[in-house]
């Protein structure tokens, strides 16, 4: 993974010093509350229901074992012993003291980490495919470009006070695991007919109150023009994005109000004035790519007798392999998901003890690296087949091996009423309730691939509008209610879920989810027909009938 050079380290250290000074001045009353707010947001610090929340950037989801141990230390020393993985692959702490945040940032800087631009109306952490570099459907490895974008977006002087936040996601695989069409800018690495790499550039996607699927603004962008094209889009957005209404300030609204054609013209005209002379050199691209060379893989056979025996003799192991591991492009290896969705555990949470143990496992079995995923789980990217059984046992002991990746209990869930001051309704409690109701793992496996996303309010941090089943907390005269949507997807078949009907009361929401799953089981053509396909084929009516007949 990318290693800082002296310039990177100096910049991060200077940022720590800058924010320490700003916080001291604020605590002395020399910076106004509202000015300090924007400064702390750009250093990842929100004030929420109970305490400040610190969001740490995990650039495109890559973490080293050293960084994991530092996160464990921070969880222990400055927090209540745990942290939370977000849908944008970042890590959040929910209980730090404001006055201590500069110290936490100083600790992070010692392991090449920071919280820069993880909130605020600026360019946020770039996200990517958590299987980058190892998946079998990869066209080109996106990580070097992610790093180039990370550097360019960090401390960008012109785009720190945008109309609203701005998110970029990059993928290089045929299967979109990074929800790129729901980002302000989504980049797909592709090859043209002469075999050269380039990007399809999507613009104006987004979730939240007004979910919009991104549109293609550039069908093929040469990598050397990547940064100038991003700059042109950002400049047009900075100049013309709406600033009169925060709910209309994202770039998706500008694209919609201008129309894609006009918007594209504005961007292209701006780009024409800056593209020459600012190209990324091939040397620079190569230098960054060198940081992402494949690790020292062993030459292994894709067949292994011991492993085959283990699969055959241990049903639980075989299930885990089926659900929680993915094919690897190097023979003799698989990628392993660590499920952060065990029943009874708040989705996406990790304790300090787990973090330390994961660091040890990463060093022993996966080249010392871990990745965070958009669906709030972790990945060991490079596990040998011969190590899988041991890794499974160790993960089981850590409660990180629930075989539910991609299933109905792998729920994306925001912090909701328990932690978030904006929430209308609780999410963690209901998620536990759904989990408890789905305690029959065979039933969950029979349901197959179903993505349930659950947000505690319209801000949609858990992307409920693109969940196959979306659950949205709404407030009705101080009482928690839930709005359901069906048919959303953040993947290649990007779609926004359709509203099922009126909101459902808290005590009935779990039963309603079970009803939906039942209808699916009854209606599907066979066990290979995915939930999403069934919903598309039969429409909402059968679901509506069942859910609203009984509740």
């Amino acid at each position: 993974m990318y290693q800082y050079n002296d310039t990177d380290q100096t910049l991060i250290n200077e940022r720590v010093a800058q924010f320490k000074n700003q916080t001291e001045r604020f605590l002395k009353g020399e910076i106004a509350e509202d000015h300090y707010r924007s400064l702390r947001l750009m250093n990842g610090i929100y004030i929420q229901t109970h305490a400040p929340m610190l969001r740490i950037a995990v650039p495109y989801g890559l973490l080293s074992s050293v960084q994991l141990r530092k996160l464990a230390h921070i969880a222990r020393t400055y927090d209540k012993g745990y942290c939370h993985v977000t849908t944008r692959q970042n890590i959040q702490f929910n209980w730090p003291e404001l006055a201590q945040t500069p110290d936490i940032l100083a600790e992070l800087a010692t392991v090449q980490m920071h919280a820069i631009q993880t909130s605020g109306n600026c360019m946020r952490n770039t996200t990517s495919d958590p299987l980058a570099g190892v998946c079998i459907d990869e066209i080109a490895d996106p990580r070097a470009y992610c790093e180039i974008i990370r550097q360019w977006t960090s401390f960008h002087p012109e785009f720190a006070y945008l109309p609203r936040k701005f998110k970029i996601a990059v993928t290089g695989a045929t299967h979109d695991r990074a929800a790129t069409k729901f980002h302000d800018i989504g980049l797909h690495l592709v090859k043209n007919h002469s075999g050269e790499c380039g990007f399809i550039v999507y613009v104006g996607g987004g979730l939240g109150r007004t979910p919009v699927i991104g549109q293609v603004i550039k069908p093929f962008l040469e990598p050397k023009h990547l940064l100038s094209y991003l700059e042109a889009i950002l400049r047009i957005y900075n100049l013309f994005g709406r600033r009169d209404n925060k709910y209309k300030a994202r770039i998706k609204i500008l694209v919609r109000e201008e129309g894609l054609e006009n918007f594209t013209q504005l961007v292209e005209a701006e780009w024409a004035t800056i593209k020459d002379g600012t190209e990324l050199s091939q040397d620079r691209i190569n230098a960054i790519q060198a940081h992402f060379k494949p690790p020292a893989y062993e030459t292994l056979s894709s067949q292994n007798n011991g492993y085959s025996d283990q699969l055959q003799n241990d049903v639980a192991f075989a299930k885990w392999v089926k659900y929680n591991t993915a094919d690897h492009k190097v023979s003799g290896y698989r990628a392993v998901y660590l499920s952060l969705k065990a029943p009874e555990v708040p989705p996406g949470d990790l304790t300090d003890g787990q973090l330390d143990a994961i660091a040890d496992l990463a060093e022993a079995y996966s080249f010392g690296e871990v990745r965070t995923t958009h669906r709030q789980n972790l990945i060991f990217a490079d596990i040998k087949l011969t190590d899988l059984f041991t890794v499974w046992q160790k993960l089981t002991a850590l409660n990180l091996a629930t075989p539910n990746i991609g299933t109905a209990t792998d729920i994306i869930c925001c912090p909701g009423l328990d932690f978030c001051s904006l929430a209308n309704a609780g999410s963690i409690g209901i998620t536990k309730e759904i989990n408890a109701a789905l305690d029959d793992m065979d039933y969950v496996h029979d349901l197959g691939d179903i993505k349930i996303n659950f947000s505690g309010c319209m801000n949609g941090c858990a992307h409920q509008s693109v969940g196959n089943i979306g659950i949205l907390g709404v407030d009705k005269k101080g009482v928690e209610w839930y709005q359901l949507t069906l048919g959303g997807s953040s993947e290649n078949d990007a779609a926004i879920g359709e509203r099922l009907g009126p909101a459902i009361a808290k005590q009935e929401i779990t039963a309603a989810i079970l009803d939906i799953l039942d209808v699916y089981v009854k209606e599907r053509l066979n066990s290979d027909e995915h939930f999403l396909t069934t919903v598309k084929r039969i429409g909402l009516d059968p679901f509506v009938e069942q859910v609203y007949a009984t509740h």
Partner: protein
Amino acid sequence: MQLIKDQKIIDDPQQFIADDQPLPSQGNITVSLARWQKDRTQLLKTAGKLGVRLEPTDATATIADDLSKLALVEVNFPLYTDGRAFSHARHLRHHYRFQGEIRAVGQFMADQVFYLSRVGVNSFQLADTEKLPIALSTLKDFSSSYQ
């Protein structure tokens, strides 16, 4: 009034003439873009250095042809969160290659001057002049950059 120019705190040699005030025939004066467009001929006869103030909604292109006649362009912040001034400054410096003074005015923060300096702003008129020393010191916050 004092301000920072080229990393020094100095007395402002320039005077902003509000749209409802009469134009003096001499002196270093700055006017709004609307005033500039309305009274351009008269302003060009002024004995002194001329400046134009751009609001966030103004386009830099409207003064592109006049830049050689201007010693100063101001970019105004009605609110510190309104980042359009950053792109205006950048356009003026990089696209139009304006060599004169680019000044940030209005409700920006001392803690924004570093980024402003990086997009080409070289003078800073803070609403609260007590913050000038802090603003000056923040110009040294970072020793290098990615862009």
